[in-house]
């Protein structure tokens, strides 16, 4: 489990999108190499207001509205990052991120490797992701698994305001390229204290949000909240659930995952994306190979169905709810 050395005296309440905004402000103030780019991020402050006030504070040379082209945004970021800038690019919704994949796979994630350390590519791509906000088609995807398998690209997903701030600061400081996915359904869920100048959080550790002994609930992003709610329900039934926020999908903190299963012997992995080929498979596979003898029940995966996220009239039926998580946990106990 992780202790964050934050000073409570400087903590101020923020929601998640405010934490993104604050982290960007603080990172730009701390390091003039940090620049921000994307569509509608300067004058408009971003469609979710994540970049609000940056243009006013740091000027248009560091806060750039780009032409409408995601492949361009990625390529610009790669070019800037190789020359010492630290670009933080926003992709407006994850459904529009696919045009960046070629630059990310073939260049960003390899630049250091193929130049044997001569050049590096410390960029951050931020994108809001996930369903549940009644958005139009292509605005509700969770395709993190596409990215989590790209060697050299870190994939980070926060699930609370404090982790958003701490992980985003760490991502911006990180000398490697980072995809930073923001679960937009919980952008404004609650305001919680965030210590602005605490230590940056580690980019390769799970967070144990709740300790438990009977079953491990493993998730990330917005689903952490259904997962915590499931843990509450299970508690009412006398079942002690450990809740792990994976937070960094690549590199993956296998140690913490194996440790929790060694303890509980049962795992439920929860994510919004389809099950088939989803990142839950990687975690389940890890448990099945490295913790097999500790498994007292099959690893359960509670996920979206194997289809694209439906338009919003049906999206709630596709996303895993607390009831499905609870039922899966109970199945592992009744096995």
């Amino acid at each position: 489990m992780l202790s964050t050395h934050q000073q409570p005296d400087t903590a101020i309440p923020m929601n998640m999108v405010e934490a993104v905004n604050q982290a960007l402000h603080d990172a730009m103030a701390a390091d003039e190499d940090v620049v921000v780019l994307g569509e509608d991020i300067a004058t408009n402050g971003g469609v979710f207001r994540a970049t609000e006030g940056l243009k006013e504070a740091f000027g248009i040379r560091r806060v750039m509205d780009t032409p409408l082209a995601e492949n361009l945004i990625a390529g610009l970021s790669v070019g800037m990052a190789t020359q010492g800038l630290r670009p933080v690019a926003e992709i407006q919704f994850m459904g529009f991120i696919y045009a960046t994949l070629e630059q990310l796979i073939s260049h960003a994630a390899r630049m250091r490797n193929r130049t044997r350390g001569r050049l590096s590519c410390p960029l951050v791509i931020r994108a809001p992701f996930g369903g549940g906000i009644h958005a139009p088609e292509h605005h509700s995807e969770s395709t993190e698994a596409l990215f989590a398998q790209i060697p050299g690209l870190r994939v980070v997903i926060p699930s609370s305001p404090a982790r958003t701030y701490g992980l985003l600061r760490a991502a911006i400081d990180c000398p490697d390229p980072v995809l930073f996915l923001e679960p937009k359904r919980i952008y404004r869920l609650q305001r919680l204290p965030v210590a602005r100048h605490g230590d940056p959080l580690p980019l390769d550790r799970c967070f144990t949000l709740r300790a438990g002994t009977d079953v491990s609930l493993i998730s990330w992003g917005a689903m952490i909240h259904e997962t915590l709610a499931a843990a509450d329900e299970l508690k009412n039934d006398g079942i002690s659930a450990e809740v792990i926020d994976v937070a960094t999908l690549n590199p993956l903190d296998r140690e913490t995952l194996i440790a929790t299963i060694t303890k509980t012997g049962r795992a439920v992995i929860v994510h919004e994306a389809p099950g088939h080929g989803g990142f839950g498979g990687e975690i389940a596979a890890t448990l099945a190979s490295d913790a097999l003898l500790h498994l007292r029940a099959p690893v359960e995966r509670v996920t979206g169905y194997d289809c694209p996220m439906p338009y919003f009239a049906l999206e709630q039926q596709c996303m895993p709810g607390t009831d499905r998580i609870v039922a899966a946990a109970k199945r592992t106990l009744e096995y």
Partner: protein
Amino acid sequence: MFTRTPYECHTRLAVDGQWHARPGDDRWARLIEGYRTMALIRQFDKKAVNLQRTGKLGTYASCLGAEALTTAAGQTLQPDDYFVPYYRDQATQYLRGVRLEQILQYWGGDERGNDFPADAPAVRDLPNCVPIGTQLTQAAGVATKAKQRHEHTAVLVTCGDGATSRGDFHETLNVAGVWQLPLIVLVNNNQWAISVPRRLQTASRTIAQKAEAAGIEGFQVDGNDLPAMLDALDYALDRARHGKGAILIEAMSYRLSDHTTADDASRYRKASDLHAAWQREPVARLRQALVEAGHWDGDQEKAWLEHCQRQVDEAIDSYLATPPAPATDMLDYLYANLPPALLAQRAQLEQRTTGGHHA
């Protein structure tokens, strides 16, 4: 017949509705029909925004200000032509036979809104396209099919000014040029891509001039001017149908609404600019011109608006009364036949959402 250059905007109607060149007698019926559609769609659009405000529709992209160019598209397309829209083409879709309640369904988060009626010209048209610019290369594919089959048809694809920055725009014009595709690319240059003004999108003087890169014809036309748009599209579609190649048309318009109902344009654009744009708006301008020429009057206007009101209300009622689709639809239409791998999921989904078992 009409000037076609990338650097000057072809116009027929002055902003006050005065005719630069009056149409021949045989043209009025079409203009009146066009006006009717424009007025209908304006009402529809307003009510759709209201539906969103009262929580009965999701995020909605208004077409306020785009009525002339989208109506002209619908009026000039032949039934066997192909239309590849983006998301501000309500009028064109309507004229292609998409029912108003389907347009509401789409924005209401229901895929059935894309299942256009089997007897409508739209039946083979592509659905709305949200990922900016991705419809363009697809339209080139549709045009390739039309050419391959020696059809005498044309493909019309639309996009916004913002979309012209995407590589797709260039790749599409380029292949249309080299393969001489029957493809018309109509850019609704409404001056904004959400908050980004046209001048931050590209340094080219006009968007029409981008045709030069592909070696095809490109010209600019007043998108607030129905008769000018009809000139442009008649010419272009006809050429395409006759195998004379692709054309880029830049229709100058203005997005009179917020980007969508999720947007607040007052954050990034001046009230005075919006006010000025209203002076050039297409519906009043055409009404003026028709009235002026004695082809429309106050009574007709009143009667037509009442008709529109009823038609839109009926569409809304029908939309609101439609029972939700079964949740299993999300799996049932994904593959031509449900793969065995999905049977268990489908059963779970069915059980969870209907609460029971089926035989």
